[in-house]
């Protein structure tokens, strides 16, 4: 009888082992001669069930199993930004550089971070101070003799030109700083010594560990008051998400989930972005990885890779590393949140993550609930989204950080009632529902304005009111027009648009302009891809102003819609040519024109022509 831990049975990636020492649920083990990584998921007498994170081909009963006695942890230190990791935090770019092999080989392991690279550690740092709605940067200096506790910042290093990496006292340590070593160190060299209350001395390095399945603690949860600006009109105006909020983006295939998430990752005004490609396409990840280093953050002018971390656990990598990839990503995101940053996390797609859970559950022969998913699916989804929030962090100085989570779901057959989507919708505050019909018409982002919602819209009222007091009213009116138009369209589908009365056709006209000129946004157009908030407000007010004018023309002057549609204005093209064009078309095309000056100019011209029309019918606009 073999007294050492050894493999008893192999069935796919589920390994049953015997006599594993000190087995605890969640412990990471090394399996077999190739030292494949796995995690203990069940204990039955002297046997344990291990979920292997890698392909188990060739593994035999009797091969050794060694317990590391540690749960799955993330390594947290400077050097994370710009990395591309798999679900177990293995750096994929480095793997390729070292092996020069485009294929991933089994059992090959690399540490997550560079242990040799020296970082300039200084006992100084800046944090954002929130005073009412304003943010001020405040500088701090740490001295020997300072009292610190878990989460306290003791210094910093410039990780990238965009991000100052704060070095925090690890969890469970409090005391007095008795030594501080300014200078160049690698992440495993001590940079400070802390004397604990019992007199023992503890050396602090820039590297710390955190078990990925456990949320990082904070002091206090705060209400969500600031929107995450994304530059995407339909999101910012109609279905906003605040910093610290949770949003979901369900959509069948081809509805543009991934492009929308890429757009959010590119343009959102978070300090740090963690992008998890969970069971998605390799070429898509390659696209993000290739383009981010070239794209510039519109606010800081730095490249986007200086603020981003990628977890690329693509669909053909082992399923179980996919299950952990979500936790790996959210742990790294929380770590930057704790430094006082606004962090945004995108997970594409949480359905693949749920499927990984289903797979594990099935192999463990658990009794399935709906569609084969385990009964604890809802609990896992809820606890993932609950890791979002705007918080006061632990430690000194007091600082506020936020983590916004945006997850895509991929409902089979586009049916939103399936378990993953319907469960997710219960735990989020913003829903961007993607619509196949809109996608077929190439209306992107294909966010359906009748099915989507944002519970946060009211919380953000104050923010928008400061930008433009009329804004909220405009937003509401626009939503009403869209809703009414949807009802009228149903009638139009039966009787034809021509048979409708003009006041109804006028609503359809405004809705059409809103659709083509505001809700539609071309992610691949150099100007249209990002629309700054002042321009969003300007565009919406222009369209709603036009709506007001035409409404009165129809109501008070009995002007027909055909007459209104035919209104032409003369515009000057960039080449300096003057041409006659339809006012409606021009309104729909302002999204492609840089800045807001043109909108004023255009509205003056439209007003002039509409005035002429009004005069003919005895109305004054």
């Amino acid at each position, binding site marked *: 009888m073999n007294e050492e831990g050894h493999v008893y*049975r192999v*069935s*796919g990636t589920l390994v049953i082992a015997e006599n594993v020492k000190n087995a605890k649920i969640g412990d990471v083990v090394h399996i077999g001669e190739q030292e494949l990584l796995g995690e203990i998921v069940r204990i039955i007498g002297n046997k344990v069930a291990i979920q292997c994170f890698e392909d*188990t*081909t*060739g*593994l*035999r*009963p*009797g091969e050794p199993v060694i317990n590391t006695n540690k749960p799955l942890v993330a390594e947290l230190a400077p050097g994370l930004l710009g990395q*591309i990791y798999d679900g177990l935090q293995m750096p994929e770019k480095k*793997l*390729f550089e070292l092996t*020069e*092999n*485009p*294929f*991933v080989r089994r059992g090959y392991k690399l540490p997550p971070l560079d242990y040799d690279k020296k970082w300039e550690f200084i006992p100084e740092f800046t944090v954002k101070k929130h005073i009412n709605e304003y943010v001020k940067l405040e500088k701090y200096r740490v001295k020997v003799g300072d009292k610190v506790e878990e989460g306290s910042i003791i210094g910093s290093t410039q990780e990238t030109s965009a991000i100052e990496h704060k070095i925090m006292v690890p969890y469970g340590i409090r005391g007095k700083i008795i030594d501080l070593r300014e200078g160049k160190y690698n992440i495993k060299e001590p940079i400070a010594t802390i004397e604990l209350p019992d007199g023992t001395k503890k050396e602090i390095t820039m590297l710390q560990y955190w078990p990925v399945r456990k949320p990082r603690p904070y002091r206090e949860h705060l209400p969500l008051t600031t929107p995450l600006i994304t530059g995407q009109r339909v999101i910012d105006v109609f279905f906003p998400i605040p910093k610290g909020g949770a949003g979901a983006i369900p959509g*069948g*295939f*081809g509805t543009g989930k991934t492009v929308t998430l890429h757009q959010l990752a590119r343009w959102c005004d978070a300090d740090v972005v963690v992008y998890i*490609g969970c069971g998605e*396409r*390799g*070429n*898509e*990840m*390659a*696209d993000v*990885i*290739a383009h981010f280093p070239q794209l510039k953050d519109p606010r800081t002018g730095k490249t986007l890779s200086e603020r981003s971390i990628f977890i*690329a656990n*693509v*669909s*053909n990598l082992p*399923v179980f590393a996919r299950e952990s990839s979500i936790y790996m990503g959210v742990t790294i995101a929380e770590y930057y949140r704790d430094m006082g940053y606004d962090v945004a996390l995108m997970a594409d797609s949480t359905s693949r993550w749920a*499927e990984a859970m*289903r797979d594990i559950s*099935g192999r463990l022969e658990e009794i399935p609930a709906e569609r*084969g998913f385990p009964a604890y699916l809802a609990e896992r989804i809820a606890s993932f989204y609950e890791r979002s929030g705007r918080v006061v962090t632990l430690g000194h100085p007091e600082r506020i950080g936020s983590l916004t989570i945006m997850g895509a779901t*991929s409902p*089979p*057959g*586009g*049916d939103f009632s399936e378990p993953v989507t319907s469960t997710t919708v219960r735990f989020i505050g913003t829903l961007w529902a993607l619509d196949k019909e809109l996608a*077929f*018409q*190439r209306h992107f982002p294909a966010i359906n304005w009748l099915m989507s919602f944002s519970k946060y819209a009211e919380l953000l009222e104050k923010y928008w009111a400061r930008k433009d007091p009329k804004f909220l009213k405009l937003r509401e009116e626009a939503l009403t027009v869209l809703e009414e138009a949807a009802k009228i369209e149903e009638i139009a*589908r039966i*009787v*034809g648009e*021509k*048979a409708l009365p003009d006041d109804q056709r006028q609503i359809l006209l405004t809705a059409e302009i809103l659709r083509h000129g505001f809700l539609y946004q071309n992610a*691949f157009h150099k100007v249209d891809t990002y629309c700054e908030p002042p321009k969003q407000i300007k565009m919406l007010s222009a369209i709603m102003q036009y709506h007001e004018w035409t409404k009165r023309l129809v109501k008070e002057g009995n002007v027909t819609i055909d007459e209104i549609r035919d209104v032409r204005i003369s515009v000057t*093209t*960039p*080449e300096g040519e003057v041409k006659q064009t339809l006012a409606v*078309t021009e309104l729909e*095309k302002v999204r*492609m024109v840089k800045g807001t000056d043109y909108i004023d100019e255009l509205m003056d011209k439209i007003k002039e022509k509409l005035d002429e029309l009004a005069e003919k019918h005895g109305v004054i606009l």
Partner: protein
Amino acid sequence: MSEYHGLFYKTVTEIKGPILVIDNVHGVGYNENVNIVLPDGSKVLGSVLETEANKAVVQVLGDTTGLDLNVSVHFTGETVKIPLSDEVIGRVFSGSFIPRDKKPPIFGEEEREVFFSVINPAARVPPHEFIQTGVSAIDGMNSLVRGQKLPIFSEAGLPHNTLAAQIARQATIIKKGAEAPEDFVVVFCAIGIKKEEYDYFRAEFEETGALNRAVMILNLADDPVIERIIAPRVALTVAEYLAFDLEMHVLTILTDMTNYAEALRIISTAREEIPARKGYPGYLYSDLATIYERAGVVIGKKGSLTQMPILTMPGGDITHPVPDLTGYITEGQLILDRDLFNKGIYPPMDVLRSLSRLMKDGIGKEKTREDHKYVADQLYVSYSEGTRARGLEKIVGREGLSERERRYLRFADDFEHKFVSQGRYENRSIEETLDIAWDILSTLPEDDLIRIEDSIIKKYYRYS
């Protein structure tokens, strides 16, 4: 039996479908190869599904008729590997890589594992080279790029094979400047298709000389069902070798993936696994991904692997698990439509529901033409408006339609008959495709072209 090394067991205790249970075995590795030798000396292949301290469960990758509890089971200690050399080109093999063309087997300098092959995402180059297929509906609106995986979703009776053969025949890269012929190879993998379909492809390839530049991996309808599991993987291992070792440009056609998924379902049922949808296993997505993801372009290699899987949607239902999960993995889909087919349009491609996700990176000024993406975008918008007008016409009649709606009705007809429709041997250049697009877009007033920038309209619009 001297040709076998390793351990033999005659302890089979259960046979259930393609699954064998063998007792009293020791040291068997998961997924390792198994030879099952019948009393008459004939041999069937298998692989280990589950291994325990003294028990193994084996999946038979061949015909199970004639198996009984007296067979000898031989564990090879190796996983499924195939030998590779450049001599594979022009050859025909079975789904488990046994020659079917009466020529000798391949002796390669190296043997490669068939199952586990994952391209490191960090080693990928985003696909960006436009492939001209000569088919307007594809080139103009759903462009294919090198390294993409773009499936054809079809139904029984539609001409998907004709289209696939036409693409294989016509696909070229247009490079501005040099027109150097490049190493182009087709890897054709038949998964449970009928002999006449195979004969069609063979004749097509033979006629154009493409057969000399093709590798055929065949599992036909009357071949063992379980071999369908490994056939596409054998084909892709060959394709990866040609693309990334010999640096050729490879187009892999896999047909029909629905048959593959059915084979997977048979095994899953035999293993008594809990099914997800329609009896298919819960891991169907992950399993299909291990096939479809084997496409791409990698850093430092000149070759590329482009995949064109074909699948027939059972009952024409796109929400069926096989097309649904495929659509989530592949980079778009080309959908063939029965209504268009009945109208006599070839290729009967439903462009509104079709999509190529990688199109944006392969088109534009330096690659095809500056107006390409605007034209494609506008065609979608206008054609969808036309189809909406058609729906309305059915209810209110042509008389009830506005002038604008009638205009779009005409547009939709023009679009289908002039742009989508073309000959089976007609090879249109991208310029021709875009010119036809402008012919029909110019039947609309300039103001209707809301997705096109003014400078582009000015240059290409046909003012009358």
